[in-house]
């Protein structure tokens, strides 16, 4: 609006320039016009600055909760103790070990179907071409990401769909001395089996996962066995065609 006012003022001053004694008045008008223009520019700048400030403030406000989330880590003790509390609660409520194991497996399954999303989002791995690659991925990337350990993989069968992950350090049993005598067949870490099974199912790989050896039961190492159930149509053949 002031620009229009300035323009009309300029027209008016142009019309008045013929008169010599209006020269002083004309100069004053021009000076006033210049000052007004400068003020207008300054106001516009301040307005811009205000907008920029508000925008940056709101974006930083909306970003800061995200920024705090970026460490994405919690203490290992809290996780391990929470898992222990869960198993203890289940043992209190179910009498039979098989029931507890089944319950842990079910819970692990529902964790696994969600964990796979987080895993794929954070690791950005490419599609695995074979079962052995899948087993390697689970051992070297997934376990490392979520439990901080790297089990070793070994292939158990000639057909190439049975693998075992050998865990020499299992963080879930950090605080477990040994199983009580009346719970001799409890699979303490059965949640892990469910997690692996659920995660594999979400990427269309049916598998059976179970504990083959367990240190808590007296074996030398903890061994998780993954058996991939072959799908009716073999995708690998189709790709080779």
């Amino acid at each position, binding site marked *: 609006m002031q620009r229009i006012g300035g323009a009309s003022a300029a027209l008016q001053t142009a019309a008045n320039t013929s008169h010599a004694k209006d020269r002083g008045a004309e100069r004053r008008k021009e000076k006033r016009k210049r000052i007004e223009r400068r003020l207008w520019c300054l106001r516009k700048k301040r307005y811009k600055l205000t907008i920029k400030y508000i925008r940056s403030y709101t974006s930083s406000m909306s970003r800061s909760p995200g920024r705090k989330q970026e*460490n994405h880590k919690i203490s290992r003790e809290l*996780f391990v103790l929470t898992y222990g509390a*869960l198993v203890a*609660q289940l043992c209190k409520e179910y009498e039979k070990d098989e029931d507890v194991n089944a319950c842990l497996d079910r819970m692990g399954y529902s*964790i696994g179907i969600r964990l796979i999303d987080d895993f794929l989002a954070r690791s950005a791995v490419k599609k695995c071409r074979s079962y052995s690659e899948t087993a390697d991925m689970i051992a070297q990337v997934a376990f490392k990401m979520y439990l*901080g350990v790297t089990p070793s993989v070994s292939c158990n069968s000639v057909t190439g769909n049975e693998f075992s992950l050998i865990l020499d350090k299992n963080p879930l049993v*950090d605080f477990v001395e040994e199983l009580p005598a009346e719970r001799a067949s409890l699979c303490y870490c059965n949640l892990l089996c469910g997690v692996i099974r659920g995660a594999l199912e979400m990427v269309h790989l049916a598998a059976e996962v179970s504990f083959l050896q367990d240190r808590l039961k007296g074996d030398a190492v903890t061994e998780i066995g993954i058996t991939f159930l072959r799908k009716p149509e073999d995708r690998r053949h189709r790709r080779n065609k």
Partner: protein
Amino acid sequence: MDARFTRGKSPVLERALGRPRSELSLAAFALLFSELVQYCQRRVASVAELQARLAQLGHHVGLRALDALVARERPGRRETKVLGVLLFVKGPLWRALFGREADKLEQANDDERTFYVIEREPVVNTFVSVPRENSSLNCAAFAAGLLEAVLGAAGFPARVSAHWHKGTTLMIKFDEAVIARDKSLEDAEIGGTAGLGGGRDGDSLERDGDTGMWGGDSLEGP
């Protein structure tokens, strides 16, 4: 019971209580916690019961977390004052378990037994969205149970509950005996009975008289 001790030495007992070696991903804990809550939810009939169950689980965790933590953070000393243990809770305990200190520690204006630990966003609630019909549910009841176990095991029996106030507030209500004991300890100090207390000093009671930093203003009870 005897068979347990003769079956062979467990490697867990031989390990040194060093600093915790690694941190785990928050996603794993969040999913485990969600399963925990779902499991409890299937077995209860009301919000209060659900919070009680979560508190019970937190209790289990807190009891076991305290010993190792005290051995690491306060070796050779024991907290004997209410203020000392609360500052320990707000600082080292919260940092060791949740990765950051609690935001504020306040005392109620009218009640000397009640304290508040305030957190804008507790770690256990990171991925929890509460539906409207359960709007009084605060999964930080887990943290409340944890805190209750810690305070009880440290010799300061209290009741802790979780509320929606300034984010999440854990309201700690100490027993009468605790406050009375605290007062008598203070009087013993102020009264200058250091001569009598000298005999007790050999028990390595911690005497930090500096009240340190409070957080924020006191507020009225919720």
